[in-house]
């Protein structure tokens, strides 16, 4: 089984230096690109590879790049590539692994991607708390400048690129791409209206592509080995491998790079070693806190962007959170809602007012103060905060675990209300 993204990663040891990265084939894809491929050819190869955005939305990466106006349509002045390294989705720890474990892979992926859109400047928008990743990325960027992979006339080609590590001042909403752009412009991190899309008018009003760290890390391998090879890595129609992870009461919580489309069951039972003795699996969030619960009957579903939606959820970040039988589902959802209510940026009313409202109701239920009609109020909010009702995807994501918990764990909510307290606390 091939693991292109993590082949160089040695947990708990220093990441590969520039020399070691080059020895493993690093920067050969970049050499090929800047010496012989036109930007449009790079984009075409990435399109053919079926690479889809690994931040959670699964938008086709090559297609996103192709929206950047090029040639005679291109406005004068700078254009930007931004790596979204603001990993902050609860339960998600995959980009940290990639940045700490093989920083040059991200840097090379960014240079190639920047070339495809002819960006003049690239930013790594890094989460404030990722201090180790910051140290390692800054070293990798400095090494890449030193070696002529960054700066003026990269590898003696006509292409030049500046790259900076921008450390965020910390806020969950910065992961939303337009809020990220506002933050990078030095403003409060609030989302922007679309259109215009960032590819046309993004950072400082210039054409900008924002891609997730894992997405960008795939790019050197696609350019080195071709679109057909990349597609062959996957078990399904969408190409590549995927960084999967599991947290919760399993025997071996952790991360694994596996073929795209590996089933939920294989990830949980084989790679994570199954549930710990005494703990039963009741459900799981497949890809971070903003995804709907899956339950036992869904375990044989392939973890990919098209299969998981067919069973009512989303692959999201691909890092699962397991709900076990000894953990109260109402309290689990309450923990998520308190987080989302706190992190709402306050820009649009449904999210700012709706999420604290929902969190208060779930808190009341958990603490034995719930009433029978609360469940229908919660259900109404799941509709009122659905996609299209709010400015960005924060609130719709926040109610995904709630709406599915009301479906799969309804009796637990009803028991809290009827017994005027949490059965798990009483036990």
């Amino acid at each position: 089984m091939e693991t292109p993204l993590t082949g160089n990663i040695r947990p708990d040891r220093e990441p590969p230096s520039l020399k070691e990265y080059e020895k493993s084939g690093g920067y050969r894809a970049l050499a090929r690109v800047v010496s012989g491929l036109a930007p449009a050819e790079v984009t075409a190869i990435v399109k053919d590879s079926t690479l889809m955005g690994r931040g959670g939305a699964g938008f086709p990466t090559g297609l996103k790049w192709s929206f950047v106006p090029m040639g005679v349509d291109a406005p004068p002045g700078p254009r930007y590539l931004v790596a979204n390294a603001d990993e902050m989705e609860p339960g998600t720890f995959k980009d940290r692994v990639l940045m700490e474990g093989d920083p040059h892979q991200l840097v090379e992926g960014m240079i190639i991607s920047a070339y495809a859109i002819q960006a003049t400047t690239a930013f790594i928008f890094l989460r404030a708390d990722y201090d180790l990743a910051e140290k390692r990325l800054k070293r990798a960027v400095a090494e890449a400048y030193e070696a002529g992979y960054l700066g003026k006339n990269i590898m003696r080609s006509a292409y030049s690129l500046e790259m900076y590590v921008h450390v965020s001042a910390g806020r969950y909403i910065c992961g939303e791409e337009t809020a990220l752009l506002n933050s990078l412009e030095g403003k409060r991190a609030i989302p922007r209206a679309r259109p215009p899309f960032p590819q046309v008018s993004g950072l400082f009003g210039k054409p900008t592509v924002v891609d997730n760290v894992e997405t960008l890390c795939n790019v050197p391998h696609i350019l080195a080995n071709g679109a057909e090879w990349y597609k062959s890595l996957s078990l399904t129609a969408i190409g590549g491998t995927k960084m999967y992870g599991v947290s919760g009461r399993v025997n071996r919580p952790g991360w694994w790079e596996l073929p795209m489309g590996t089933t939920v069951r294989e990830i949980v039972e084989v790679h994570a070693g199954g549930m710990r003795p005494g703990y039963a699996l009741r459900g799981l969030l497949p890809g971070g806190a903003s995804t709907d619960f899956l339950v036992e009957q869904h375990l044989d579903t392939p973890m990919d962007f098209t299969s998981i939606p067919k069973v009512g959820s989303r692959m999201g970040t691909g890092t699962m959170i397991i709900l076990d039988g000894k953990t109260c589902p109402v309290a689990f959802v309450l923990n998520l809602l308190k987080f989302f209510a706190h992190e709402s940026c306050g820009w649009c009313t449904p999210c700012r007012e709706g999420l604290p409202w929902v969190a208060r109701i779930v808190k009341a239920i958990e603490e034995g103060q719930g009433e029978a009609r609360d469940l229908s109020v919660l259900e109404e909010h799941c509709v009122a905060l659905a996609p299209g009702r709010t400015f960005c995807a924060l609130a719709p994501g926040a109610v995904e675990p709630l709406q599915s918990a009301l479906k799969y764990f309804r009796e637990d909510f009803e028991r809290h209300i009827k017994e005027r307290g949490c059965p798990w606390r009483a036990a």
Partner: protein
Amino acid sequence: MLSDKEREEIEAEMARYPHKRAMVPEALRIVQTHRGWISDESVRDVAELMGMSAEEIDTIASSYNMIFRRPVGRHVILFCDNVSCWIMRSDAVRDHLVKRLAAGPGETTKDGRYTVLPSACLGDCHHAPVMMVDDEMHGNLTPEKIDRILERYT
């Protein structure tokens, strides 16, 4: 007043951005690195350097979790209270931490050594429960482990 060193560091970073204003969060981070927190005076100093009003700077400063508008201890503990840690009973570990330090979330110990802040998911969920002390991660926390970690910082 900003020190020469602070001013120098801020100006060195400015070249990256086409507009001076884009430097506001970074400037606040630099000042905070030197002073531990952002006082009203620091807000006014950054405002002057940026050519903006203090109110404009504060509206930015107050919107970010990692800009501290109140004094903090010599070490900042970010304690993850998100779902993956909570499942692994981070509540019990946090209660031990709070009792041991006699400082709750958002508070600083009497000796000024630690400030405890609840944090969003720290992205190390396979080692839950986790916390950070300054720039160091600590995972698989237990009350005993907390005791050992707290001894290490002065």
